């Protein structure tokens, strides 16, 4: 898999070193992956907020289609759709149940007990679902096509403090570690007889012995890591000279402004009641 076209390498490197550094840059399996992280972040933002800024159905459905098309070009369509469905279905179910039955409306479709299912309720539920899916696709597409490190290095190049950038990426990369830790702790407590396969009540009662070690363990880890980082001058103020950075083409800069302007215009129009 090739490194992104035009990745910026520090300009004072030996050619041999430059080649070696280029090999360390995360792979970009598709042109979409190779876009600047900020561009992809703006696309995700416009996709999610835009879905709410636009009224009715056409806008949100259009955004969904755009995201699906981009995902297809990036080669992550199947995976993105699967994960989005997985994440939005639980929320969708509750949204549908609540909206269909409690939304004030006049045209009743059917009744269950004291609750009326109205056309207005179904309409509201459908609109909400479309927007939920748009958010999920937008953010999911960003996460799937952007390496956290590439994003953070880009932020740092734009002037974000290295320490803030570090915390941002460390937080993202900490999530799988947290899940793994919770699993290992669950194992230790189950080995002492804690029943995680039994009744719901038993499982709820068993939460405390799991939460404590997860929190303490995470805090201890954070403490140990911050001590180790000090030995690598982590808290030294000032900018750093990066070894590589993601390219940022002029047309991408234009695209970002156009998209954000479009979002702003849509929001204003919506708020002032025009759409």
């Amino acid at each position: 898999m090739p490194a992104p076209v035009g990745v910026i390498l520090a300009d004072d490197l030996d050619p041999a070193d430059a080649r070696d550094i280029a090999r360390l840059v995360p792979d970009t399996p598709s042109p979409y992956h190779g876009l600047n992280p900020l561009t992809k972040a703006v696309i995700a933002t416009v996709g999610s907020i835009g879905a709410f800024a636009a009224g009715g159905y056409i806008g949100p459905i259009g955004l969904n289609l755009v995201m699906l098309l981009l995902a297809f070009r990036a080669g992550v369509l199947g995976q993105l759709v699967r994960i989005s469905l997985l994440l939005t279905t639980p929320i969708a179910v509750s949204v549908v149940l609540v909206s269909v039955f409690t939304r004030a409306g006049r045209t009743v479709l059917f009744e269950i007990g004291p609750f009326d299912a109205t056309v207005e309720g179904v309409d509201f539920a459908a609109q909400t679902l479309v927007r939920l899916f748009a958010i999920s696709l937008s953010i999911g597409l960003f996460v799937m096509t952007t390496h956290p490190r590439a994003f953070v290095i880009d932020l740092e190049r734009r002037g974000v403090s290295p320490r803030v950038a570090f915390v941002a990426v460390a937080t993202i990369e900490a999530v799988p570690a947290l899940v793994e830790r919770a699993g290992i702790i669950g194992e230790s407590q189950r080995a002492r007889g804690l029943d995680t396969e039994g009744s719901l009540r038993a499982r709820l009662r068993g939460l405390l012995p799991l939460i404590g070690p997860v929190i303490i363990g995470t805090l201890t880890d954070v403490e140990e890591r911050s001590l180790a980082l000090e030995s690598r001058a982590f808290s030294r103020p000032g900018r750093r000279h990066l070894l590589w950075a993601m390219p940022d083409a002029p047309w991408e800069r234009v695209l970002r402004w156009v998209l954000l302007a479009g979002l702003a215009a849509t929001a204003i129009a919506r708020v002032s009641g025009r759409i």
Partner: protein
Amino acid sequence: MLALSGVSYRYAGYAARVLHDIDLTLADGEIVGVVGANEAGKSTLCLVASGLAPGSIGGGLTGRLAIDGVDMKGRPLHEFSTRVGIAFQNPATQLSGVSGSVFEEVAFGPMNLGLPARETVERTKAALASLGIEGLREREPRRLSGGQAQLVVIASLLAMRPAHLVLDEPTAQLDPEGTRLVGEALRRLAATGTAMLIVEHKADLLAELCRRVVVIDAGRIALDGETAAVLGDRRLVDWGVEPPSSVRLGRALEARGLEPGLIAGSTA
């Protein structure tokens, strides 16, 4: 030269002191071992020598820590990092967690110093070479074995070019292969002139590497002297320290009325 003079320390939030009147010198290029029972103050000593106590964790320090003649009191932590590096026993929590490759992990420190990219790369290559791990440069740090990860940690510290290294039980959580890897790395380092303060329970390892050994007992230095003399001292047991195998076996033979010299040369 790293010198602790009359150093006492108590942790933040605690009234009792954990270190009392410590006088300890680490000369240029010297390798000194530290032994003692758990909770005797060995780890605290490491934190103080590296400036992390009180610099990062707070607490009360009295006495003086001087590195290369400079009093380090009140100095910012990043100034310590180019003079003394510290490695702990768990490799997983010492890796930054944000590097996709060993090369970038080792380059993290020099980059934080604001060095130009060219110099960062130079130092990183040199650090990897000094431990013989150039072959790991493109590997993902989180996928390494414990021993390999610990070598990456040490390389990351070396890239800061400190004259002194403090190692707090670097092999405690490693399997025998990892211990062997780190032991070999420390042997190589010993030849380069980096001064090292090594805390370990494995007396055999210290017997091989260190010119001098210090015994810590209840927060004080109980003994400070030439390695063979200290590790052969009969009071080690009282201080909760296991002597090296050769000493231990020699004593077992003596207890049976046999010549300790019977096993000479066989325990290497």
